[in-house]
């Protein structure tokens, strides 16, 4: 902590820390832009926004779990399984009843799968009292395995054009479809977290489960609901990523778990629970995706990117600790 901050009042100091991330994110974009002007081209910015939007869903899923002082390591497996199952439903129904019904069926099954995975996680954590880390580690293994077995390990092709067009290529409300979706979902999530009773309960129980229980709140129910919400958000992300790739991929989410945690924590969610707004996954995913795209543009070896993400993770956690200490 720089000395100069020591004498500022709590509020101001908090505000400074709040501002740090947007400034760093912006600085990163400007920095890359100075070295490589292509970074700030309209096409690239649209690309970053689109990738960031897809990533936002997973980071948001992680945020909801983090608020309850939990984890959701199964978001990646959820994305994979949703991608496979939704694609299978979509192709089957499309053959039988046309593309519109197919897309609807695919989306419905995808969301259902996400909700079921979330409910299983939630039941294990809230009612089974199993440590969320191990519970979701195990379900990650189970659902990841399911997605490879169901698909036989091969991608599922022949998705209806309607689907890939509407959810990837099309522009909704002057923005690429995934970005519009992310903004809408982000706003809805923000409303739920900040202005509804269930959202408030998540923060309270994440901060102190005993106090929430003594205040008559339904701790276990809400904990379970948090994981359902997390599963649904991951499912949405999985559907959009499937639309982007154009096929159902059994390994779609495998490498996204780490990044999702990194983005949420760097953005300001706390591992100690009870903290973080929608801004956390939003800014966090912009930072992580921006770095990744920028490094690609600078032709930095793709294999070094995990090294950067790992460093961000540790720095984010250290930053989180700093925030807790300065309070």
């Amino acid at each position: 902590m720089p000395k100069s901050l020591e004498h500022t009042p709590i509020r101001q100091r908090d505000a400074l820390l709040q501002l740090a991330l947007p400034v760093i994110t912006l600085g990163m974009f400007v920095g890359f832009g100075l070295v490589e002007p292509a970074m700030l081209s309209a096409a690239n910015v649209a690309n970053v926004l689109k990738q960031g939007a897809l990533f936002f869903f997973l980071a948001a899923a992680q945020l909801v779990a983090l608020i309850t002082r939990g984890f959701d390591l199964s978001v990646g497996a959820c994305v994979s399984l949703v991608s496979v199952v939704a694609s299978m439903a979509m192709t089957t129904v499309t053959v039988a009843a046309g593309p519109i019904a197919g897309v609807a069926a695919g989306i419905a099954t995808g969301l259902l799968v996400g909700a079921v995975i979330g409910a299983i996680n939630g039941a294990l954590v809230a009612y089974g009292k199993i440590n969320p880390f191990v519970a979701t580690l195990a379900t990650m293994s189970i659902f990841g395995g399911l997605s490879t077995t169901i698909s036989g390990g091969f991608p599922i092709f022949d998705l209806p054009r309607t689907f890939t067009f509407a959810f990837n290529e099309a522009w909704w409300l002057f923005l690429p479809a995934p970005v519009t979706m992310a903004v809408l979902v982000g706003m809805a999530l923000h409303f739920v977290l900040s202005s509804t009773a269930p959202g408030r309960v998540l923060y309270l129980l994440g901060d102190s489960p005993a106090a929430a229980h003594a205040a008559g709140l339904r701790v276990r129910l809400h904990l379970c609901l948090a994981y359902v919400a997390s599963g649904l958000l991951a499912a949405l992300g999985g559907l959009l990523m499937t639309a982007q790739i154009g096929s159902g991929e059994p390994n779609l989410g495998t490498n996204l778990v780490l990044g999702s945690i990194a983005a949420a924590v760097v953005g300001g969610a706390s591992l100690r629970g009870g903290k973080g707004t929608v801004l956390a996954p939003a800014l966090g995913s912009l930072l992580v995706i921006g770095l990744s795209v920028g490094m690609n543009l600078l032709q930095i070896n793709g294999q070094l990117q995990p090294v950067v993400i790992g460093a961000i993770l540790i720095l984010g956690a250290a930053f989180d600790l700093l925030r807790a200490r300065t309070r």
Partner: protein
Amino acid sequence: MTSLALFRGRTAVPLGLVAGLPLMLVAACVLTALYEPRFLRAANLMNVLRNASFLSVISAGQMMVMIVGGFDISVGAVVALTSVGTATALVFLAGWGLSGIGLLVLGCLAGLVPALLVGLCNGLLVSVGRISPFMVTIGTMSIASGLAAHFTGGSPIYGLPPFFLETLGNGRLAGVPGVVFFAAAVVLALWYLQCQSRGGRYFNAVGGNEKAARQTGIDTRTYICAAYVISALLAGLTGILLTARVGSGEATLGANLMLQSISVAVIAGVSLKGGVGKVQNIVLSSLFLSVLSNAMSLARIDSKYHVIVFGVVVLIAVWAEARGTRAEGSDA
């Protein structure tokens, strides 16, 4: 006397599945043998034993970290990094004209250096930096696997000295794979640490009640840090042995070992809250999982199903532990 006291003196703690672990192991062996007599062939049994050895070594390290109340997510990546590091060092040193035992020892020691660094990094960030072990090790995992992939550039490192492959990879003593002896040595050393030395108790004390341990004058930071270093070094050893077995330095080696090591530890009754864990149970648990996996292979169950089964087994194990501690808590 003392070794007997280990088993006799202590009151049993309800630790879920652990009490039934030997029984489950025997049952798994008997059922598999009945279903598929090929299970009992010497070659197959040696195979099971070899797998269990790899698992035991890496899970023993995981156990030490869990005893001090943490997790080590980076073990798998350390295996990969060590594999790449050892292979590079061996090829490099062989190029200098070194050979025989000297090459072997120097190459392996050089290969362990990155593991040691990762371990120290984990340990210091957790114990001194007070950062969540989960975040630290997930971060170092990302860094270590990224570095391993970067150094290989995506293709395995071939051309390892034949002596290395013959001794560490395929070496046998009295018909038993050399790996088994390495594992036995590690297990014995940890058993000695846990049951016969002061230090072993301090690891448990730090994980059981850190504040009380500090008040007693135990340097809790040292023990937390040491646990991560031990874990990384054992992961490194696993990496070297696996490299010798596979015959090349690979950046994808050990991808499943993180999950498996945590599974083994959880099934062995190592508490997620810290303070509890015995290396003997790690051995039993590793054997159990290896038999289970072998049985599924013999039954021609697709390897894709194995992860699912492991996930379910882990869930049952933690669930049993959660129930056990709750029952204990309610009548305390």
